[in-house]
């Protein structure tokens, strides 16, 4: 049914990020090929696609980590947005003696950490850690955290930036199912109360259908773009994932487990 409806025009919507003809080449191969897409302001936008489709590459181009052709414009007036970034898997040296409190403070504190952490900064870190239910980790060493714990601390660090644009690379990787639900509900609540734009990369359709308000289907090129109900059609998914995925019911829960309490699920389907 959805495939026959024309996709709405997104140029009219205020954009947080606008990709225009973005191309990234590595060794003569286009990993990202003339991508033109929009991340609407205040949305939860998901970039989905199979492994190796260029999802993370597009994020890295946005973060300015790799060179690209084309243009990436942020915000209405071209001023770079404050970004909070949650990497997929933080590659770091686990032997480093660094506590979670120090990790949260080191981007903000002027005085060197040898003189301890300022009381006000420490309180602020604890507030944010409490938000992601990780306050008990404050005194632990970052290198001793489990995958799920680290992901929470990284989210806390990203939120600590008071971001206008929260960028998440595979937010559910390394988080168990229960943790993942908390993660997504928490993000939904925060996005609404603080009014930031959320951009996440995912190959997990269950997460996307549940939480995204805007979807960019990517397989080197943009295969489809729009609200989940219009983009996550059987035809589109078969086209980008290269196999028959079946119709994704955008209101179903992964594995039929539990009921999602996130605000997005309480809204009427056509909101």
């Amino acid at each position: 049914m959805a495939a026959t409806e024309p996709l709405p025009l997104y140029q009219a919507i205020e954009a947080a990020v606008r990709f225009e003809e973005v191309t990234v080449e590595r060794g003569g191969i286009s990993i990202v090929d003339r991508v033109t897409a929009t991340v609407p302001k205040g949305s939860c936008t998901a970039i989905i696609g199979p492994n190796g489709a260029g999802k993370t590459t597009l994020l890295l181009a946005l973060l300015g980590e790799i060179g690209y052709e084309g243009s990436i414009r942020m915000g209405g007036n071209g001023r770079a947005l404050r970004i909070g970034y949650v990497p997929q898997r933080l590659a770091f040296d686990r032997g480093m003696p660094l506590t979670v409190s120090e990790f949260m403070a080191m981007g903000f504190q002027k005085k060197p950490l040898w003189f301890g952490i300022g009381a006000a900064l420490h309180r602020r870190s604890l507030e944010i850690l409490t938000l992601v239910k990780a306050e008990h980790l404050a005194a632990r060493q970052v290198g001793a955290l489990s995958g799920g714990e680290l992901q929470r601390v990284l989210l806390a660090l990203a939120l600590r930036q008071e971001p206008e644009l929260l960028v998440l690379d595979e937010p559910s990787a390394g988080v168990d199912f229960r943790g993942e639900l908390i993660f997504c509900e928490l993000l939904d609540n925060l996005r609404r109360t603080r009014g930031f734009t959320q951009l996440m990369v995912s190959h997990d359709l269950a997460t996307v259908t549940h939480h995204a308000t805007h979807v960019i289907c990517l397989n080197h090129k943009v295969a489809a773009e729009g609200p989940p109900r219009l983009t996550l059609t059987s035809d589109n998914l078969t086209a980008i994932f290269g196999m028959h995925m079946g119709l994704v019911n955008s209101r179903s829960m992964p594995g039929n487990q539990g009921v999602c309490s996130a605000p997005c699920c309480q809204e009427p389907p056509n909101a």
Partner: protein
Amino acid sequence: MPDLSPLYALLAQLLPFECLQARFMQQALLGLLLLAPMAAAMGLMVVNFRMAFFADAISHSAFAGVALGLLFSVDPNWTMPAFGLLVGLGIMILQRHSNLSSDTVIGVFFSAMVAFGLAIVSRDRSLARDLQRFLYGDILTISDGQIVCLLVLFLALMTFQAIGYNHLLYIGLNPVLAQAHRVRVALHQYIFAGLLALIVMFAVQAVGVLLVTAMLIVPAAAARNVARSAGAMFWWAMLFSLTSAVMGLLISAQDWARTATGATIILVACCWFFLSLVVASLRREQTV
């Protein structure tokens, strides 16, 4: 040139050892007291950035630096740090702007430096003896002029560490994350590489090309074993580095030892490292 005599007198009073009454020993002690904290602070970041090989390459460029000085009859005391600085920044630029792995980039620089130095020295047999000094180092011949240079470098480097310590840790942890969260990664990396090159060149004169990386790495590695936070790690590294330097100098001057000062300092530091390993493993047993 400022008069450093009052400083020497003070040192002799603070550490009333018989061997420290000689002026050259007081100079060596003062030089080490300046060099050790710098090496410790930079060493922490060298370990953090996994840049031990980088430090090694710069120390080996000392050869080429001295050779250049001898070739153009300029004082090697100037050509050596200047050339080291050039090599350090050069490696950093290549590393940031090429797809080669940093090991490969440094490996190429490293070989080029050593080969160049050896090629020039091999032209003149009388130069070869001069270069021995750089292989093994000699802190006992440090001059007042060099100590003043060290003092200036000390102030610059400690200011940089005080301002940049937190951000350097951030970059060492993960540069992409740091960049996304508005840390100026490139600026920090270039200043760090430049200062590291200078400190390595001074350390070469103290402990020699062969042991200079050890002076940076060993106290830092020991501090990582013992510390429970990044703040404490800094003070532990200072403690290990300073005690190694002072004890090494004193031991090397004893009649029963009469060892090379640089090597003795590194040996003491290595003892600290093994002790720190024991402490770390005992602590692990307690928590299990």
